């Protein structure tokens, strides 16, 4: 069984992002980039399925700049067998990515697509759902447990108020939530082996898709800074302030 794992290159989770002075976006100059944490979980799940003997081939795919090769190499160091980069310098958005992924799915015909529920840069949480809609595959989103057997995948989903288990007929799309697994580190011997694994580069034109963004960013602003609190001297003072300053009572 072949599994496709789409991954995204994003600003490192530990970087404190700063808004550009002209409010057009976030400053990415000289900022450390890394694989989106939810994508790491997706790669880990695919690798575990392969270790269990369920999966025979893992294909990692990324839609992004040339430098996204680094993250594909990491995915291969973690256990992906080969990878595909759809190279573009566009500021790609979920719909464009989903269309590109659909084209890859048509080519590769994986039985399972495992991807992160969202990327920590845009926080859109749309790509997996859009891909499912475009390909007509069933979807199991926010997975905290994945079991594949007899041509079906059982996905335990983290939903408001509890857990829901759905059973999907393969091929299917699964998006990963935080508690699905704890990703391993890339071992140095595997990082070296990953250098020799195949990495194909394609363009949007090769796939016949249009990656032009449909949504325009008007302005990006940092969240308003919170005012420091004060310590009041007495209950009376508190009541007085709530009444006259905050005007909430």
């Amino acid at each position: 069984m072949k599994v496709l794992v789409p991954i995204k290159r994003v600003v490192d989770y530990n970087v404190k992002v700063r808004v550009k002075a002209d409010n057009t976006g976030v400053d990415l100059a000289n900022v450390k980039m890394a694989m989106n944490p939810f994508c790491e979980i997706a790669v880990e799940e695919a690798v575990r399925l392969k270790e269990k003997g369920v999966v025979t081939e893992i294909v990692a795919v990324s839609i992004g700049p040339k430098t996204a090769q680094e993250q594909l190499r990491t995915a291969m160091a973690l256990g992906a067998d080969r990878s595909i980069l759809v190279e573009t310098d566009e500021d790609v958005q979920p719909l464009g990515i989903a269309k590109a992924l659909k084209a890859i799915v048509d080519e590769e015909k994986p039985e399972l697509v495992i991807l992160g529920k969202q990327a920590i840069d845009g926080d859109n949480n749309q790509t997996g759902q859009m891909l499912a809609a475009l390909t007509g595959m069933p979807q199991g989103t926010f997975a905290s447990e994945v079991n594949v057997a007899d041509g079906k995948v059982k996905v335990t989903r983290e939903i408001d108020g509890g857990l829901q288990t759905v059973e999907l007929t393969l091929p299917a799309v699964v998006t990963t939530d935080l508690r699905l697994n704890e990703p391993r580190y890339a071992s140095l011997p595997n990082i070296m082996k990953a250098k020799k694994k195949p990495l194909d580069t394609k363009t949007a034109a090769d796939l016949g898709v249009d990656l032009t963004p449909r949504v325009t960013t008007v302005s990006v602003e940092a969240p308003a800074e919170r005012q420091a609190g004060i310590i009041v001297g007495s209950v009376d003072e508190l009541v007085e302030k709530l009444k006259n300053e905050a005007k909430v009572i």
Partner: protein
Amino acid sequence: MTAFAHAAMEQLTDLLGKRLLTDQESAERYGVDWTKVWAPSPCAVALPETIDEVQQIVEIANEHGLHLVPSGGRTGLSAGAVAANNELVVAFDRMNKVLDFNEFDRAVTVQPGVVTQQLQEFAEEKGLFYPVDFASAGSSQIGGNIGTNAGGIKVIRYGMTRDWITGLKVVTGKGELLELNKGLIKNATGYDFRHLFIGSEGTLGFVVEATVKLTRQPKDLTCLVLGAPGFREVMKILHAFQQDIDLTAFEFFSDKAMAHVLAHGVPKPFDTECPFYCLLEFEQLSEQVGEQAMAIFEKCVEEGWVLDGVMSQSLQQLDQLWQLRERISESIAPHTPYKNDISVSIAKVPDFVEDVDTVVQDAYPDFEIVWFGHIGDGNMHLNILKPADLAKEDFFAKCNNVSKWVFEIVEKYNGSISAEHGVGMTKKPYLEYSRSPEEIACMKAVKQVFDPNNVMNPGKLFDV
């Protein structure tokens, strides 16, 4: 309270008002550091806000024979900031402002009560970096760092606190205010007293202002965690990497340390079990550096020095891998560990460790020895865990023997009985293992110059 002491307290109250704390709770809070051996018993706690107030406190102390103990974040491990003998604690919590920043000098002038992390964050805001870093950076204060010449995890690349202080204002034991080196980089005008005060543990005077230089931020920090078959191989790994790469850290820890930290909930780096592990960190200034690190790793594997290893792929993983080293201390804390902080020159480390292991295990075979430390600078933290069935008193009595043996070995290898934790009271009896009688006599003579009446942190470092 004697009439003398009464008069002193009255003058201090006039000077400080509510900022002279005399309640029991404050006394217990301000009178101790992380060592819990001596019970705190200060006469009061002073919270000065200005240099002038510090000078006046010192003058009052001289007049009335009052002893002063400086207090910063109180994260010390040698009882250097413990007030157990009716001293007045002078706490710098209220002198916690950043006073000046100059982008051309890349220097920041701070009051002594600025917390290390506050300085690190200030530097970051300015696009710069203050590289002295250690586990207690969230509480320790700059004044205390200077008093103890604090080191930490990046010493291999950035040196100790000493290397970052370009200017100091100190109030001596005579109450004089000295301005030392004035933030200059080049200054060839005789004795540089700044360096006498750094690491003097408050025995000569109190730091009331410091000018600290900053540096550029590290770029793309990456770490490797490697497993090695033996201690000598760890040294070979260090050597191999240092040939080609400027390491920002090189830490080691034993399999026992790893077992404790994993049991504490830190994720495992890899499955291969190894007797020793090392964590090394460097800046990936270019792709080339990464390639170089891989090539060295390959060589180390071929030579049999490395059994397995991982490399961080993000800053998040860098942080997680560092936890393997940084959380060892807390993971062994429930075992009431005996701790010692020692250093020898790097080449002597393996023999030194072997000697200590042999001596301790021969005498007390049931003691579990946990080693970790900043091996890149020859600094090791020796930890011995209390066997569960041994009473605390008996354990520490036996550990006193261990201390003596360890320091004898330190002396044999020309090392230091305190690499970065200072001497304070815990290591005072052993100073002679690292310093000659002539040297100690000179130290006492220096003390006499700056603090003739012995009011500044008496009973620490040595007895006058």
